[in-house]
């Protein structure tokens, strides 16, 4: 059914079997071969890749290899430029969510190294202004994951060291330098409304505190669909600052009621989930701090 060809030309000829490549949105993969697969009665020549992270096999039709943005892992020169870019603090976050969403989606699907850097940097800058909505938080994490993987692969360093270095650039510790220039030390992010004002702006921490008492697996934050999220965003995007001020007028309790009215589908789910799972976890907690000292390790 499947047969291996001898000297396959992959893409534009720059890729070879055994090469480490970056698959957009998937991460670092290794080209394991070119085979012919019979799919729906048709023979397709596919390039098989093995994702390094978990060994998953990815198959790409050979004719589409270049079209999907498959590329070799960046070289050290490119990684150096990435860190120059990350250490350059001047970024104004794009506040219009529509433009931001379109740009970020294009960058991620393009699979370019600097596209991923821009997504990470843009969302990082935005996170310094206000908390990211759930989908952008996920995008931020994916961009970070891809970038850390590529830095580690390109420089042959552990993932942990790669991520620490990435954050030495994004959140410079005291005295951190980049090419002889001292970077401004990271400052604490803007105080979150929850701490400063009360509970007007729900960041999800309220849920967590509830769960802390009854540590149930994450009562999903308002299962906000695209529409709800977009509506929320549209409210915030034109004027991110004044929004809390408007809401701050009624007393906290009244504001909460108003919120519940606004999200009728989401509200009832949280307490239900917490109530269900609370007893089991509580019971497990009682036995936990078992301190049995076994034999000595060397």
């Amino acid at each position: 059914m499947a047969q291996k060809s001898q000297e396959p030309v992959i893409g534009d000829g720059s890729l070879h079997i055994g090469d480490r490549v970056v698959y957009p949105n998937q991460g670092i993969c290794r080209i394991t071969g070119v085979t012919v697969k019979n799919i729906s009665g048709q023979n397709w020549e596919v390039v098989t890749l093995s994702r390094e992270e978990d060994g998953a096999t990815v198959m790409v039709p050979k004719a589409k290899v270049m079209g999907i943005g498959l590329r070799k892992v960046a070289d050290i020169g490119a990684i150096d430029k990435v860190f120059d870019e990350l250490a350059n603090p001047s970024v104004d976050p794009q506040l219009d969510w529509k433009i931001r969403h379109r740009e970020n989606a294009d960058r991620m699907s393009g699979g370019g190294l600097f596209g991923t850097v821009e997504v990470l940097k843009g969302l990082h800058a935005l996170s310094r202004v206000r908390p990211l909505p759930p989908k952008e938080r996920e995008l931020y994490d994916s961009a970070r994951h891809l970038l850390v993987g590529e830095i580690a692969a390109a420089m042959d360093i552990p993932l942990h060291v790669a991520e620490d270095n990435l954050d030495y650039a994004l959140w410079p510790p005291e005295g951190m330098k980049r090419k002889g220039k001292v970077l401004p030390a990271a400052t604490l992010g803007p105080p979150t409304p929850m701490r400063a004002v009360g509970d007007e702006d729900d960041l999800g921490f309220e849920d967590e505190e509830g769960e802390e008492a009854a540590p149930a697996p994450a009562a999903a934050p308002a299962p906000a669909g695209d529409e709800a999220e977009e509506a929320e965003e549209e409210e915030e995007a034109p004027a991110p600052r004044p929004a809390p001020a408007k809401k701050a007028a009624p007393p906290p309790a009244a504001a909460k009621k108003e919120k519940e009215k606004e999200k009728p589908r989401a509200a009832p789910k949280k307490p239900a989930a917490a109530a269900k799972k609370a007893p089991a976890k509580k019971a497990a907690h009682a036995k936990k701090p078992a301190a049995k000292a076994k034999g000595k390790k060397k």
Partner: protein
Amino acid sequence: MIRIVTLSEFPPDVIDFVSRRLHAAYGMGCELEGEGEMPKAAMDDEQSGWSAPKVVEEMDDDVTLYADDKILYLTAEPLVAPPGPMGTGPVDGFAQYGGGKAVATAHGLGEKGSLPLDQGLAKRAAHYVGHLWDLHHCFDPRCAMHPGWSPGFAQYPEVALCLFCREKSERKIKLGSS
């Protein structure tokens, strides 16, 4: 199960505090597995500290790890890491991403401007266990996955994960359960 192995002496109440906080953060059992010594081969060439990746690599233990078992080594010694593209920076631990072993140090805790020993160690422990579950650094200063050198880490002593990190860790823990 999160298994703690101490490589330095810690008061029992500190270890108890750390295991309780780890349990609360990840919903997993956490116990003191035993004591050990820093492997001599992990001493950094410049003798300025212990190479964190080597400590994890060189530790020769006989603990059998199942799919959802994680080992956390706790030490009070200063740790260093190999230089990366930004040079060297503060290091308070090391974890094998998505792997089974991590090390966290209590070095520097209890000093002026930093968290007290128990809270600081618990927060660092939660941070490195998070990396074992594939969590990345988080921008939320209240989250345990916030970088340890950032001012937010000392500003918020509570050992808690933000909603995103908590959900992600729960997904990973479910997938990894043996």
